[in-house]
C-alpha cells in the first residue's frame, strides 16, 4: 500500500450519470474503507481537526474504521455531527478538514469526508441506533425551519428531553437538503429521509405548511403555544438577480426556481405534475455549488450547458469535487466572463446572452482579486435559457413580523456565538444569521443554540 495515495472510490461513469439523477459517487466498500482508514497516522496533534467547524474527532472515528468497528465509528461521529451522511457528502473538505491533513503535504490527504460518509451509511444500512432521548422534561421549544440548523437544534434538544416542534414553510422537511442540493449529490429517499425519521424517533414533531410570520407568528408561539424558547433556522432563501436588462424575459430563472421544480417538486419525473423548462442551450451564471448543481441538473435534463463566471477557475467557490464532476460531465466553462444583458426575441423569450470578458485586478475586501471588464471585449452567444445562481439572502418575513428582532444591513438576524438574538427567548442560527454558508456551519450553529437554549430554560 502506498501511504500517500488515496484509495480510489467508485463513481458512475460520466457518460452514464449525465443522463440520470442517481448518486454520482457510489461510496467505499468495507475493504476499501478499512484500507483508506489505515492510511491515517492517528496524529497526536491532529491538524485536520482544527479545520473542522465542529471539531469532529477525526483520528478517533477513522481509527475505529481501520479496526473494522464501523458502528463505533458512527457513534464517535454522532457526538459531533447530527448529519454525518450529509456532511461526508457535501462539506467542502478540500478547504476544511482535508486541507490540513499531514499526508497532504507529501501526497493525498486522507479521504476524511468519504470515510465519514461510509461510517454513517453503514450505520444506517445496519439500523444502528446512535441516539436516544432522555425522559421528557416538560419544556417546549419551537424550531422554525427544517434545514441543517433546525434539524440539529431540534435533535439535540429532543435528546435532552425537550418537547420540540419544528414548523416548516414548505410541504417537505429538509430545507436546502431537499429543495436545493440535487439527488445525484445527496439522495433524498435514503440519506435525507433517514435523518428526518431519526428526528421523529427522538420525539420531534414536524409541522409542514406553516409559514412563521404568516400562518402563525413568533408571538403566537410564546403566547398561545406556550413555548419556552424559539429557534429560528429559516435559512437564506431569497434569490438575487443581477439587475441587467432582459432579466425578466421568458426563460430566465433563478437557480432556486429551477432546482426547486426539479428536486422538491420532482419535475424530472414524468408522473409528477410540476413542469420544468430547460431548453437546448443553457447559461448558468455563477460559480458556487448552486451554479454547479443547476448546470449539472440542466445537463441531465438534456441541455448543453455553459457556466458563466466572472473570476477565474481558482476562485470558483464551489467544492473542488463538484467542479471536477461538472467538467467530466461535459459542462462548458466560460470563465472571466460577465453577463451584461440578456437578449430576447420578438416574443420575449431568451435567445442569447451578451457578456464581457474580465481580467483580475487588485485584491478586493474579500482578498480575492477583483474582476474588471476588458474594454471592447463584448460578445454574445446563443442560449434559450439563463439560470441565475448569484447567491441568496435571508427572507425578511420573520424579522418584519417579530417586534424587537434585530437584523443587520444584509438583513441577517443578529445573534451571538450561542445564537442569542435581541429578543429574549429567541435564538437563531445557520444561513439566517450568517447569510448563505455551509451545511456544517448551519449544523454547528444549531448545536450551539441548543446548548444555549438548554441553559436559558434551566437558569
Amino acid at each position, binding site marked *: 500500500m502506498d501511504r500517500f495515495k488515496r484509495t480510489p472510490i467508485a463513481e458512475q461513469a460520466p457518460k452514464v450519470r449525465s443522463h440520470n439523477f442517481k448518486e454520482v459517487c457510489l461510496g467505499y466498500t468495507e475493504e476499501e474503507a478499512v484500507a483508506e482508514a489505515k492510511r491515517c497516522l492517528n496524529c497526536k496533534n491532529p491538524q485536520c481537526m482544527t479545520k473542522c467547524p465542529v471539531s469532529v474527532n477525526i483520528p478517533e472515528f477513522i481509527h475505529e474504521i481501520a479496526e473494522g468497528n464501523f458502528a463505533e465509528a458512527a457513534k464517535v461521529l454522532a457526538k459531533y455531527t447530527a448529519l454525518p451522511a450529509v456532511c461526508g457528502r457535501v462539506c467542502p473538505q478540500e478547504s476544511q478538514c482535508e486541507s490540513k491533513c499531514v499526508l497532504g503535504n507529501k501526497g493525498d490527504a486522507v479521504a476524511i469526508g468519504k470515510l465519514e460518509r461510509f461510517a454513517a451509511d453503514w450505520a444506517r444500512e445496519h439500523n444502528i441506533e446512535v441516539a436516544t432521548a432522555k425522559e421528557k422534561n416538560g419544556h417546549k421549544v419551537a424550531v422554525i425551519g427544517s434545514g441543517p440548523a433546525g434539524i440539529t437544534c431540534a435533535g439535540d434538544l429532543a435528546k435532552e428531553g425537550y418537547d420540540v416542534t419544528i414548523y416548516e414553510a414548505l410541504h417537505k422537511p429538509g430545507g436546502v437538503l431537499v429543495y436545493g442540493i440535487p439527488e445525484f449529490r445527496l439522495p433524498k429517499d435514503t440519506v435525507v429521509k433517514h435523518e428526518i425519521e431519526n428526528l421523529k424517533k427522538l420525539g420531534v414533531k414536524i409541522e409542514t405548511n406553516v409559514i412563521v410570520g404568516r400562518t402563525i407568528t413568533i408571538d403566537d408561539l410564546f403566547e398561545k403555544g406556550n413555548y419556552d424558547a424559539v429557534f429560528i433556522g429559516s435559512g437564506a432563501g431569497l434569490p438575487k438577480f443581477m439587475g441587467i436588462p432582459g432579466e425578466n424575459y421568458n426563460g430566465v430563472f433563478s437557480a432556486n*426556481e429551477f432546482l426547486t421544480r426539479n428536486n422538491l417538486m420532482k419535475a424530472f419525473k414524468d408522473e409528477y405534475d410540476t413542469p*420544468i423548462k430547460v431548453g437546448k442551450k443553457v447559461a448558468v451564471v455563477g460559480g458556487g455549488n448552486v451554479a454547479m448543481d443547476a448546470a449539472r441538473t440542466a445537463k441531465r435534463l438534456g441541455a448543453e450547458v455553459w457556466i458563466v463566471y466572472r473570476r477565474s477557475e481558482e476562485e470558483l467557490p464551489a467544492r473542488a469535487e463538484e467542479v471536477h464532476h461538472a467538467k467530466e460531465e461535459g459542462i462548458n466553462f466560460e470563465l472571466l466572463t460577465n453577463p451584461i444583458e440578456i437578449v430576447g426575441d420578438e416574443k420575449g423569450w431568451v435567445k442569447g446572452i451578451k457578456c464581457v470578458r474580465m481580467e483580475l485586478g487588485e485584491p478586493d475586501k474579500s482578498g480575492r482579486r477583483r474582476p474588471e471588464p476588458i474594454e471592447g471585449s463584448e460578445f454574445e452567444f446563443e442560449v434559450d435559457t439563463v439560470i441565475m445562481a448569484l447567491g441568496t439572502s435571508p*427572507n425578511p418575513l420573520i424579522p418584519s413580523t417579530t417586534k424587537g428582532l434585530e437584523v443587520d444591513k444584509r438583513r441577517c438576524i443578529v445573534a451571538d456565538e450561542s445564537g442569542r438574538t435581541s429578543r429574549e427567548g429567541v435564538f437563531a442560527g445557520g444561513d439566517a444569521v450568517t447569510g448563505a454558508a455551509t451545511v456544517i456551519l448551519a449544523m454547528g450553529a444549531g448545536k450551539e443554540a441548543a446548548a444555549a437554549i438548554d441553559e436559558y430554560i434551566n437558569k
Partner: protein
Amino acid sequence: MYKIVDKKNLAPNIFSMDILAPRVAQSAQPGQFVIVIADEKGERVPLTICDYDTEKGTVTIVVQSTGCSTKKMAEYNVGDYFEDFVGPLGQPSEYVNEDLNELKKKKVLFVAGGVGTAPVYPQARWFHERGIDVDVIIGAKTKELVILEEKMSKVAGNLYVATDDGSYGFKGMVTNLIEDLVKNQGKKYDFIVCIGPMIMMKFVCKLTKELGIKTIVSLNPIMVDGTGMCGACRVSVGNETKFACVDGPEFDGHLVNFDEALRRQTQYKSEESEKGGQHVCKCQQGGAK
C-alpha cells in the same frame, strides 16, 4: 392532509370548496392567497382566499378549471383530502390597515372579472361590515358564467353586471361599463380594486389611468413556493422588479408592466401540453388522486 368539507358548482368549470385549515382561517385577511397541492405528485397551485370562517376553521377557495392541476382538483369531493394547503400568503389589501374614518369618506368601486368575482366578495363584505357600501361590477363572458351575484348583492351598495354578449345586464366589457358609470352617470370614485384575468386588469388600468382613478389590481403570475424563495412570480412594478407572492399580490395597477406579466404567464404553457403528445398535460398521464 386537509379535508374538503363543502363543495359547490358555481358555473360551468367553476367550483368553490371549503377546506378545513384552522390556522390559515385564523390568520387570513382580505387580499391574501393560499397554495394547494392536490396529491403527492401535484404541483403547488396558488388560489385566492375567497372567504374564511374562524369558528369552523375553514377557508373557501373558488377555482376555475383551466388546465391539468385545476381539473385534477375539480375531481375532489366533500370528504376527500388535499395533500397540502398553506397560507395565508402575500400582503393583505392595503386598505385593511388604513384609518377607518378616512376610509369611510371614500367612494370605492370593485371590478370583478369571471372567477375574480370570488375574491372580490370577502373584500366587499369587509367594507359592508364596517358600514361602507362599495359599488361592484361583475363582468363575465356570458350569463351562465356570472357567479356569486346574490351573495354579492347583500354586501354591495350598487351591483352592476356586465356580460360581453349582452345575455345578462349591461352589454359589453367592464371597461365600457366603468366608462358609462363615470362619464355618463357622473359617478366619482376615489379608488378602484380590480380582480380578474390579467388581460382585463390591463385594459381596466389603461382606462382608469386616463380617468385618473387610482386602481389596485391582484396579480396572478406563475408561482412555485409563494414565500419569496424562487422568483418565478417576478413582475415589473414602476420599473422595479417585485416578487408578487411576498410584495403583492396586490399592486398599483398603473405601475404594473402588464405586457411583461401576460407574457411571463405563458412560460410553461407549451411545456405542459408537449408532455406526452398533443395537449396532454403532465398530470393527466400519471398522477392518480
